[in-house]
């Protein structure tokens, strides 16, 4: 027995136990808020308001989801966000990938100049106001176009793509096609693109998530409610109880019916918040497992740079 204990403390077993415990605690901490939000979204509104939910759902109701789906702005936001995400990501790919490919070619004269040209913008920029005035001078403020154009090129992603191309598309491959009379454009579309599915996956993921979650650009550049993306409406709903309090205090002469209506929404306010979180994050949850295999590959591609 003593011999066994001694081995336990001296050998790697104790170490393994400590690692396992730390990782387990980590896992619980990462998972808990996610489970909690899901549980709250289907729990009884009274239980949610009273803070009785701790892990699993208390009671069961879908009335929160029903209310969220009745909320018209959410649908407008959804449609706009899908449009911005799809078109924006497409523009991202058209701008980023050809440029990254050209820069990965070692026979490109001046590639170092262009790399510096792009990388400077990672650290130095005009800042918020000059950018705003610039976009205003193009007449793009409060247009849908600005939502898909802005951020068309992420220099970081371009460098990731360049490393991928120079690492996994051998020069000789495209050289052979060139000798056979294939143009650079045809080369890129017919030979390079089919070989870079993993890269496209990573880029769609990086850019797509950025578009889906983007909030600040819309806040700065959009004015019409009909053009707002989901995140702006989301913010409104999530601050709703605060808004209600304000309307209550600003208009003390509300009719009994109005107060009853407000109270009803107030009762469900927290529930609705949890539901709206789930509804807005759902597409990510669905896409996530499908693109997951690309994650590590993508970051590994990026880490090769030097």
């Amino acid at each position, binding site marked *: 027995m003593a011999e066994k204990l001694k081995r336990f403390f001296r050998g790697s077993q104790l*170490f393994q136990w400590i690692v396992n415990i730390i*990782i387990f605690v980590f896992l619980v901490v990462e998972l808990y808020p996610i489970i909690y939000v899901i549980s709250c979204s289907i729990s009884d509104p009274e239980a949610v308001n009273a*803070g009785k939910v701790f892990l699993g759902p208390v009671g069961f109701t879908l009335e929160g989801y029903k209310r969220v789906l009745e909320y018209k702005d959410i649908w407008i936001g959804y449609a706009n966000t899908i449009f911005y995400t799809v078109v924006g990501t497409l523009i991202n790919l058209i701008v980023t990938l050809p440029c990254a490919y050209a820069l990965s070619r070692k026979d490109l004269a001046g590639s170092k100049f262009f790399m510096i040209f792009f990388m400077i913008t990672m650290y*130095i920029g005009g800042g918020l106001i*000059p950018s705003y*005035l610039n976009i205003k001078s193009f007449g793009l403020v409060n247009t849908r176009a600005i939502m898909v154009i802005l951020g068309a090129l992420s220099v970081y992603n371009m460098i990731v793509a360049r490393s991928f191309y120079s690492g996994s598309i051998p020069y000789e491959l495209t050289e052979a096609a060139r000798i056979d009379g294939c143009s*650079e454009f045809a080369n890129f579309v017919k030979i390079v693109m089919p070989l870079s599915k993993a890269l496209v996956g990573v880029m769609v993921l990086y850019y797509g998530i950025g578009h889906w979650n983007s909030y600040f650009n819309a806040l700065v550049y959009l004015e019409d409610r009909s053009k707002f993306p989901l995140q702006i409406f989301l913010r409104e709903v999530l601050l709703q109880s605060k808004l209600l309090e304000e309307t209550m205090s600003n208009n003390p002469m509300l009719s009994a019916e109005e107060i009853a209506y407000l109270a009803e929404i107030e009762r469900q306010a927290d529930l609705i918040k949890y539901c709206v*979180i789930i509804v807005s*994050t759902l597409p990510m949850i669905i896409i996530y497992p499908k693109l997951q295999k690309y994650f590590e590959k993508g970051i590994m591609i990026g*880490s090769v740079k030097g």
Partner: protein
Amino acid sequence: MKRKARQQYKQRYNFRKKVLSKWQLYVLMLPAVLYTLLFSYKPMYGILIAFQDFRVRRGIWGSDWVGLANFERLFDSYWFPIILKNTLTLSTLGLVIGFPLPIILALLLNELKNEKYRTFVQTVSYMPHFISTVVMCSIITMFLSPANGVINQIITFFGGEKLYFMQEASWFKWINEISGIWQGIGWSSIIYYAALSSVDSALLEAADIDGASRLQKIWYINLPEIIPTVVVMFILRCGSILSVGYEKVYLLQNDMNLIGSEIISTYVYKVGLEQSDFSFSTAVGLFNTVVNCVILISANWLSKKVTKSGLF
């Protein structure tokens, strides 16, 4: 002399030929170059308005020049010490706590024996990265709510007093940092984990034969392997020391915690677009950029001195 000129001409001719024969490659780059010129370089000349009393109607060339008046106003303003201190506090916390944790996580994950379990832990840890800032901030507010938030429920369950997290300025930095770690630790650990996969297994076997403990192997083999990655990430992080994630800070702010939560970039937004004080806002932004560059260059210089490797 003549020969030299001819050689130069020949070189230039060759260069031109090289460029011309590859014109299609430049066309491929055209969209990116155009975008960068129009949306990144063109606004840079707008920085000039930091030295002006800018009026939109009169434009950049018609507005009056005021020299450094906007900067003087900034340095004298009530908010300047507050936003500078808050920005530095938030970014230093991120650097001291938020930076090493993903490295530790990667090292620990590397020690897990069961591959399926490890993949599961990793998958779960990436998930929060995909939650939008808006959603993240409301989850934080709801969790910390004194009325029915789960954190305060737990505190009262153990007999403690309710804490008004969002109302007190002193809590803000911790809320921002801890939630940031929760959201980003898994994602940031990938790059270190990837670097760990290139550790030579022969080295580990040799260490086994020499009787090295697990901890020793981590310290003497795994850690040195990822140091170059760590250095690059560290310098990159230093370069953005004053550009704390403003979206999240902006969304977590309220009137009560403003003393602890107003940072340079949120201040730029408020002064610039909410109060339309364009010149002053641009001056604040320019100050931010200059400090960032100075820190980046010094971090790179220091890293070259100490570890012999740098970013540029």
